[in-house]
């Protein structure tokens, strides 16, 4: 089996079979990461460009490592050291890069739809590493892998995503991915950070964290940004923490064998207390490890590889 599209732009519309394929492939690659020599020649001769128009630590390093582990050649681009400063358009930038003969583009951009725009401009495979508030498919896939490792099946798993849903691409991709895999998803946050007609995405919406946590298996915290206060969406981070901070005390409401997740970077003490973030039920660092394996799987599958990995 292969993936249907040449690109990975989002999880909306992706089938369960395709997600399973990516996760199964990631499991094989994860095994490679445990070896003494963590490198395979799978993508030797292929060139990947990492186009980062927006700051990123985790995702960027994770993609770079995934590319290196697979022996791909890679080129890094960041918006602040490029011709973007001279006014070059996104289209010109990517077409010029493609003219230098490349095979894949990994893109992070603050504009929703930028990877779709790029996919229309170039023949190379495009991987969305986060676009605006739209999607962040590789993050959601690594979250799915992390949950699958712990719970075996995601069917019926009760997940709540807490925080700034309005601006979160992680929330959107996870809602699609988790729902497709059979999980039951809820979101929780203040109404000013909840998008219009959110429930139409098939999720239950809560403004009260204690109610949202009742009987859940998984809590996924999202980063809350200081700018939201300036934009008039929140009166203060202090009040946000009081209402929506994930504290140890609140975890009582969860089911046994619960899990705490966060895509990072964490604002310790704001959306989640250090005690919870570092607690035994937290898989936050496991998520990061799985990120490399999932990205290796995606690079491999989009390069034309089929499931078997030796």
């Amino acid at each position: 089996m292969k993936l249907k599209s040449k690109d990975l732009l989002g999880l909306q519309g992706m089938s369960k079979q395709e997600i399973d394929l990516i996760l199964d492939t990631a499991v094989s690659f994860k095994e490679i990461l445990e070896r003494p020599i963590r490198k395979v020649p799978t993508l030797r001769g292929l060139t990947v460009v990492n186009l980062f128009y927006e700051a990123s630590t985790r995702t960027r390093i994770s993609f770079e490592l995934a590319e290196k582990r697979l022996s791909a050649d890679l080129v890094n681009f960041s918006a602040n050291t490029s011709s973007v400063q001279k006014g070059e358009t996104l289209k010109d930038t990517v077409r010029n890069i493609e003219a230098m003969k490349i095979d894949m583009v990994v893109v992070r951009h603050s504009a929703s739809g930028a990877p779709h725009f790029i996919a229309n401009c170039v023949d190379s495979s495009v991987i969305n590493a986060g676009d605006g508030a739209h999607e962040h498919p590789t993050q959601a896939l690594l979250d799915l892998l992390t949950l699958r490792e712990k719970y075996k099946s995601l069917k019926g798993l009760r997940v709540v995503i807490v925080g700034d849903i309005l601006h979160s691409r992680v929330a959107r991709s996870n809602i699609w991915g988790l729902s497709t895999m059979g999980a039951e998803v809820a979101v929780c946050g203040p109404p000013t950070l909840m998008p219009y007609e959110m429930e139409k995405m098939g999720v239950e919406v809560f403004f009260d964290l204690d109610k949202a946590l009742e009987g859940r298996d998984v809590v996924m915290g999202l980063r809350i940004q200081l700018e939201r206060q300036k934009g008039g969406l929140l009166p203060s981070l202090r009040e946000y923490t009081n209402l929506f901070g994930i504290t140890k005390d609140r975890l009582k409401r969860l089911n046994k064998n619960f899990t705490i997740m966060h895509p990072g970077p964490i604002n310790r003490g704001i959306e989640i207390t250090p005690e919870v973030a570092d607690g035994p039920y937290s898989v936050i660092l496991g998520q990061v490890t799985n990120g490399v394996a999932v990205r290796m799987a995606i690079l491999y599958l989009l390069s034309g590889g089929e499931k078997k990995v030796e």
Partner: protein
Amino acid sequence: MSEEYDLILAGGKVIDPASGLSKIGDIYIKGKKIAKIEAKNLLDSKRSKKSKDDRIIDASGKIVTPGLIDMHVHLREPGREDEETIYTGSQAAAAGGFTCICCMPNTEPPIDDQESVNFVYEKARKALCKVFCVGAATKGLNGEELTEMADLKEAGAVAVSDDGKPISNSRIMRNALDYSRMLGWPVISHCEDLDLSSGGVMNESYTSTLLGLPGIPSLAEEIMVSRDLRLAEFTGGRVHIAHVSTRGSVELIRAAKKKGVKITSEATPHHFSLTDEIIKTFNTNARVNPPLRTQKDVEEIKKGLRDGTIDCIATDHAPHSIEEKDVEFGAAPPGMVGLETALGLVITELVNKKILSWEEAVAKMTVNPARILNLNLGRIEVGGSADLTVVDPKTSWTVDISQFKSKSKNSPFEGRKLTGRAWMTIVDGKIVHRL
């Protein structure tokens, strides 16, 4: 045929909403005027020597209407002649069946004094159709100081507007409505609460939720519509609401009209034929302000067109260069061209779907805008301007932007199949477009 006519449109179905005429007839044109209208088909009696005389145009099977008027276009001259000029805009108008267009003042520099109005009219002398100028309501479109409206009127402007943006300051809007009363002018209002729309690039809806694009709520428009109709009621001034896009706006205008407030309104073809769902492909040609809304808004606009809440159909023709539109969705400027697709959309979406009768549709593109702007146009009458549009109501065609006369091609209707099109456009007795 007698020598005293220059052109005869023979045997078309003549629809003139102003006089209620709606039957087969011949229209005789002499010079720039309509000389005679006869309720018969000249060609029936002359079948044998048909087409011998090239002054006789066989319009049988066609619909002859007063020349179409578009009271809301952006022609980009002066300032962005790379996107459109008054001349190329008039070519697009003629191709779309329009004999008269009214250009908005948000050029660079804006049309806000006699000199700039004169510039437009000087350029318009070469245009294929009639071009009227809407002057700025405030100096430099700054929303702070009224323009010299009497001066603008003397130079030939037909209304005032800061279109492209709202007059946010309610006191200035009140003053504009008050001041324009003595000129008999409407103030054309672009209704948008800039605080509510701030940062938005599309309608706030389930689609914006899916796409993660910042939304513009419908109430950014409705709050301003509500304000403007209260101001119009209070001052007795005339307000014309441009490009109505939401269900709530239609309801507000309907209620105000019932109360007798001097309020008129227009809707664009894109707001009655598209929803924001087409943005799912991030097509920047679908970015427009006010944004494309939802199906319920589209339905209410159609209802408003049918019950007379919405007086006219105007395109808000807004040319943008390919370079400006070929970018990430949020980075593209809002606006779409409309002159060459409007008539086909009206016929396909409104007439053929029984939302409007032919007579109603034609009224909304001829006599209604003419009345709002006090133009002595928009009707078929002996002695009146020979501005006529001959419509082929049956022809099926596919929108092909490469065929547009407009300098800009930013249309979301590319590839759309439409029925009905301008077959011939006549301005002052002269054929300016022929299919």
